[in-house]
């Protein structure tokens, strides 16, 4: 059985499934209980599972993440919601110094398998600090898994996997896609890998890598390229940002010989640099053109009246694609 769900509903469904089948799972954060989350991702869960399992916490991110670590040490599976990704800053000490290192520094005796969910990204006309894309901070920290689904099906399946894996997971939810469309989502449990990218379109001429809210932008640019130039781009939704699915990335570029990477995070030291470096390290002989990054500019995400110009647009991605396919 499947139902048509948008991404918020799919996330809620994943939490519902795991709360029901695994009594170690706890959901905690600011406004997640009575209010059902500011985006309603936990809507109705407190009514269903009670305030001991779906918990409104005091307003303190270090408290939420730090105490989740203590719960996880004792067998619980906390799923902490950070209201918007940039509000994780007060809790970063706990993420970087403890959650990421628990297994390592106790030589495998203890682990901190918690999930930190957070809406992220721009394009929602949010106030200051409601639009950041910080994935590279987390991907840069050994011990954390980092994933970013781009559709309701993946969101549910990956969140279920995240609640089952024995590592801390940073689960990034592209705010702009929360209600952007619905998909058939199976009822009950199913899993989507936390390590595999997905090839969305098959292409011969260029590989186009994206994740989160940039996936639909990449797809539109690829369509446009096909229309305008009769060239086909292979669009790959990375889904997992740490670890990267090297095999899928490399095998695509080995075939196309060209690569464009799109992300809305700032360009400098963004994940695009890591993917470009990977290609330079291991696929340089296959490359027929320079690698192109189309990314957010290296400025703080600006106020919402001009945020669209900060973000990679279909036009910018298309221009990047053309530059790469025309090189030679």
């Amino acid at each position, binding site marked *: 059985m499947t139902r048509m769900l948008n991404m918020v509903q799919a996330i809620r469904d994943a939490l519902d499934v795991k709360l029901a089948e695994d009594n170690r799972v706890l959901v905690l954060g600011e406004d997640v209980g*009575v209010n059902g989350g500011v985006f309603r991702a936990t809507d109705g869960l407190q009514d269903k599972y009670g305030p001991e399992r779906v918990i409104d916490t*005091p*307003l303190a991110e270090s*408290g939420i993440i730090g105490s989740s670590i203590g719960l996880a040490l004792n067998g619980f599976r906390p799923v902490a919601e950070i209201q918007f990704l940039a*509000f994780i800053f*007060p809790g970063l000490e706990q993420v970087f110094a403890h959650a990421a290192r628990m297994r390592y520094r106790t030589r495998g005796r203890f682990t901190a398998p918690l999930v930190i969910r957070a809406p992220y990204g721009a394009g929602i006309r*949010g106030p200051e600090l409601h639009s950041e894309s910080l994935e590279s901070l987390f991907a840069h920290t050994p011990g954390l898994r980092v994933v970013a689904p781009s559709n309701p099906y993946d969101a549910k399946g990956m969140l279920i996997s995240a609640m089952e894996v024995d590592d801390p997971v940073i689960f990034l939810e592209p705010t702009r896609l929360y209600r952007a469309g619905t998909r058939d989502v199976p009822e009950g449990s199913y899993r989507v890998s936390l390590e595999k990218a997905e090839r969305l379109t098959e292409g011969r001429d260029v590989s186009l890598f994206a994740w989160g809210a940039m996936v639909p932008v990449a797809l539109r640019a690829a369509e446009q390229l096909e229309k305008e130039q009769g060239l086909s781009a292979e669009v790959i939704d990375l889904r997992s940002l740490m670890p990267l699915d090297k095999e899928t990335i490399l095998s695509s570029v080995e075939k196309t010989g060209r690569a464009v990477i799109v992300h809305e995070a700032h360009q400098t030291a963004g994940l695009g640099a890591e993917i470009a470096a990977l290609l330079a390290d291991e696929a340089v002989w296959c490359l027929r053109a320079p690698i192109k990054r189309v990314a957010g500019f290296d*400025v703080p995400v600006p106020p919402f*009246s*001009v945020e669209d110009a900060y973000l990679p647009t279909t036009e910018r991605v298309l221009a990047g694609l053309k530059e790469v396919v025309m090189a030679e």
Partner: protein
Amino acid sequence: MLAENELLQHPGFTSAAELTALPALRVVQPDGQANEELLSRVSDEELIAMYQQMLRVRLFDRKCIALQRQGKMGTYAPFEGQEAAQVASAVCLANKDWMFPTYRDHAAAMTRGLPMQTVYRYWMGQMDGFSVPDELNILPPCVPIATHLLHGVGAAWAARLRDEDTVSFCYFGDGATSEGDFHEALNFAGVFHLPVVFFCQNNGFAISVPFARQSASPTIAKRASAYGMDGIRVDGNDAVAVYLACQTAIHKARNGGGPTLIEAVTQRFGAHTTADDPTRYRDQAAMNEEWRRERDAVQRLRLLLTSKGLWDDNREEQWIAKVGNELVNAWEEAVAKPFSEPIEMFDHVYSKMPAHLEEQKKLLAGGGLA
């Protein structure tokens, strides 16, 4: 192990039960009756000015909600219900003093002199909504909760090091008291004996979370003692009480007396922001009705002024008309002004623009195409 009563009798023991709610300082009762002795510390002119400003910001707040509903502004954080706390505190500050507001404190910022047009532009997502006139020491609204309290501490520290009598004044909500930065700020202020006032508007909710979920202690003010500073709880809907408490704390800070924590007990009548639906977590209609009847700060001050013959329907009407014009004119100016150009996002990132940003700026100027 000590027996429970041995522990209880030890002079070093404090029980949680001792943390009862402190009584709040109140000068004017909801019906407008006042403690004349305390009231005499405030001049009639000051009372009238505060009332006018409270009414002005209330009308501004309602206008902003309407503009947001018409799609002319972004998500907006209303403050209706908290006018006395914000206005009666801000009027106590001298021009040189530092003010650190949150996203809900534009009533305080406007009282201090931030132009109405700037506040409009801020909520329209325009870049110049973040700019502050040169003569004012105010930062733009702080969005990450409680983080600005430490800036207040540093600014107060600078004043002490430079032997200036400038005071720092920090606005924040009850939810902010749960963040680690709240503790760090109060602790620093206590240790370094700094001229800073921590002004908490306890409006009972942090979005949907009631104060009882923020703290097992019924009072915020009482926490001051743990940091070696004075604390005071005031009726935040009583402009006169807020005014007297803030004046005293600011005077003390200015004269080397150190920091104070003020808890102004108040409520927001409306939603957390225009994106929030308060009916999900409280009986909005009943609360609103009861609060407006019994706790409305604007009404309370008006009753007082009327009873003293300082205000009447006629003056009220004139004032509303005057403010109405101001609201419209400022709005018209705000929309007539050119909107932010995307290219401005590259300004003010560094003292001198690095080469890679120059390149990106050119890219955007050329249509953003590769």
